[in-house]
């Protein structure tokens, strides 16, 4: 009985981890953009284009690594379009993000349709072209060891390489933001770009670099969806994850670790959601599936409304930098 409960807990947490990965990556991507002063609702579009590029190139080359590289490259390219609009042309950042999203939805499908003739999807990938689950050393052997072995085999082991990459990235990003020159400048430029400018640092160059970081992480997130967790690109396969990631970022007050925790919370809600469907709750009976499916979204709204209060965004985010003001 206890064993079963443990197995269920491990399974739920492992599911949480898998669901959290794209959110965490996108959320950290958003962190770079927003800390630099660029509000980014275009995470969704960058991820989507990354997913498409990854699946296409992995299909053509047979190598997931080539796919990952392509995802990053395409996502960065889109981030540069975003950056050009927001930084160089000082356009409305939210509108630019929206444009990126719409463009990505349309372009991925049009190109997939034309290139692969599979109705806007890419062909299913064979195993060698995907990132497969990695069984860590001794996982099999330890699987029967109570508790720790179970957790090791079920939760720690058995993920694909992007999951581990993401876990490794969290402290790296945290360190980069708080302990490096780049991070110091990044945090400064989102708060007071004039201060950065007068300190002899180019605001535009800094923001472009932040957007490169943002694009990179979004690309990895996209690749995760299409060539690690999934095995092909489908139209609109990001399904709102970019927006959830943004909500998590706000909920995490633009700090890496709290944002990651918020992502885990959303992912947990999602994982629980899948397990609650059709389950009869004591006293309530079977809740309509749709009500349970709405749970993560409802949770987002409630968190934003209730617990965050007025989140203080980087002061300069959303405002194009204009020297003459």
């Amino acid at each position, binding site marked *: 009985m206890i064993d079963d409960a443990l197995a269920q807990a491990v399974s739920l947490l492992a599911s949480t981890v898998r669901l959290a990965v794209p959110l965490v990556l996108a959320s950290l991507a958003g962190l770079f953009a927003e800390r630099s002063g660029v509000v980014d609702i275009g995470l969704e579009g960058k991820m989507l284009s990354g997913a498409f590029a990854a699946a296409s190139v992995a299909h053509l080359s047979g190598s997931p690594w080539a796919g990952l590289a392509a995802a990053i490259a395409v996502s960065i390219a889109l981030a540069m379009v975003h950056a050009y609009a927001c930084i160089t042309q000082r356009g409305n950042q939210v509108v630019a993000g929206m444009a990126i999203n719409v463009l990505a939805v349309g372009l991925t499908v049009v190109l997939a349709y034309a290139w692969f003739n599979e109705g806007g999807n890419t062909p299913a990938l064979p195993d060698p072209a995907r990132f497969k689950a990695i069984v860590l050393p001794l996982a099999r052997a330890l699987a029967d060891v109570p508790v720790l072995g179970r957790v090791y085999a079920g939760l720690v082991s058995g993920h694909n390489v992007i999951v581990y990459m993401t876990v490794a990235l969290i402290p790296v990003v945290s360190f980069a933001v708080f302990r490096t*020159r780049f991070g110091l*400048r990044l945090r*400064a430029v989102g*708060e007071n770009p004039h201060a950065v400018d*007068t*300190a*002899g*640092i180019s605001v535009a160059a800094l923001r472009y670099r932040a957007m490169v970081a943002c694009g990179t992480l979004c690309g990895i997130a996209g690749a995760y969806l299409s060539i690690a967790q999934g095995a092909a690109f489908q139209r609109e396969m990001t399904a709102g994850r970019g927006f959830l990631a943004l909500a998590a970022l706000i909920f995490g007050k633009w700090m890496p670790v709290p944002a990651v925790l918020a992502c885990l919370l959303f992912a947990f809600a999602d994982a629980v959601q899948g397990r609650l469907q059709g389950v009869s709750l004591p006293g309530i009976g079977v809740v309509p599936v749709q009500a349970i499916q709405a749970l993560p979204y409802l949770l987002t709204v409630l968190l934003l409304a209730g617990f965050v209060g007025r989140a203080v965004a980087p*002061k300069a985010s959303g405002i194009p930098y204009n020297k003459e003001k």
Partner: protein
Amino acid sequence: MEGVPALALAGVDKSFGAVHANRAIDLSVAQGSIHGIVGENGAGKSTLMGIAYGYYRPDAGTIRVDGRVVEISEPQDAIRAGIGMVHQHFMLVETFTVLENILLGAEGGALLARGEAEARAGLARLMAEYALEVDLDARVADLDVGAQQRVEILKALWRGARILILDEPTAVLTPQETDRLFALLAKWRDQGRTVLLITHKLREILAITDRVTVMRRGAVVATLETARTSQAELAELMVGRRVLLKVDKRAAVPGAEILRAEGLRHVDARGIERLRGISFAVHAGEIVGIAGVAGNGQSELIEALAGLKPLAGGRILFKGAPVDPPGSADACRSARARRIAHVPEDRLRMGLVASFAARESAILGYHDDADLGSGPFLDPDATRTRTNRLMEAFDVRPRLPELRSANFSGGNQQKLVLGREIDRDPELLIVGQPTRGVDIGAIEFIHRRLVDLRDAGKAILLVSCELDEILSLADRILVMFDGRIAGELPRAAADERQLGLLMAGVAAAA
């Protein structure tokens, strides 16, 4: 004054679109001197310094540092050439610590840890040498403005500046703090460093500089030896005509009490108590001036009185009756209905809407007036008519009600706001920084209208950081320090030294 100039600008020209901000400027600053630059708002001083600091690119002209031509196209170049700058609006990241602010742009490596240790040691030396104490680990947002300025100066020094440009450094200082700053500048000069001091306060120029350059409308009109000039001469050069430096007015004839504040307290969003029990009264037919260094609660006070900022304690009585609790949704509206008018400190932040046509800014706060349309509708012709009348009465130029508010000069914007508020015949006018960023001609006009309003028996509460303005307009002077009234003096009994001590929180209430 011999030798190669520390900084020399030749033929510097800069336009922003249609605005010709700098016209063929020649300027030579001698090594080891303090050089003043004066001029009205919009004369081009800040643009010129921005060019010297690499903030703007000149359209033409050359810059020499120590005789060598240098290409300064961004601040990095200026810093490398040994130029440092203390901006009028501090260039600090408020959420950062002092140390982080100083490190920004001079981190000393890709990782922060090493540079930090180095900076701590170096800064300790600098602070000791120049008496510039600040807590390196304090958050800038928690520092007072004087300390923030010290951070700015430390920043420039840490970057090895030999030529220091200070843009209106005394605007936020008490007279005593100003003296301290000037002592520091003098020490530098004696060490062979060079200082450029931009200000519009002529007394300061005369007190500290060696030479002074006067600018008007983007051009240099004169460069003089400070010892051989006078305040009147400089003022005339600045404006291009003779200027009345004093407002002439009769003695006040105070009437009934109009406004009474009792123990006002305000706590801001960050939990800092900005008003700590303010009590005073304003009577009909008098101008009460509130002096003080910026950031001591004056802004919060006038916004609370106007109904914008909520109170944590105390009450406000208007003609003996309590007003609606400030900060509530309808407080501003009801204040206006009682004929309490408010000219806010910052016209672009609050006084008008930059993107609106002048006729739309001219009804801000009065858009529910019955004569502006019937029922829920707003009649554009009615707003145009009213705006024309205001523009006529307050000499707003150009007289174009459809022109965007942002396209008027600061003085004309201010006249439009003042006109709008006076037009409704207020019982009480609350006015903050009425002449900030306004040219001398408009200052005279605005001062005149305030005195006229007083003479018409209205009560005026004037908040200004310009001691001169307070001294020339107020009938009674209150000094604010750290959220309290530090003292009250009748105009006749007030002198600058005493006010300065009160502003610094040194002297007790008189």
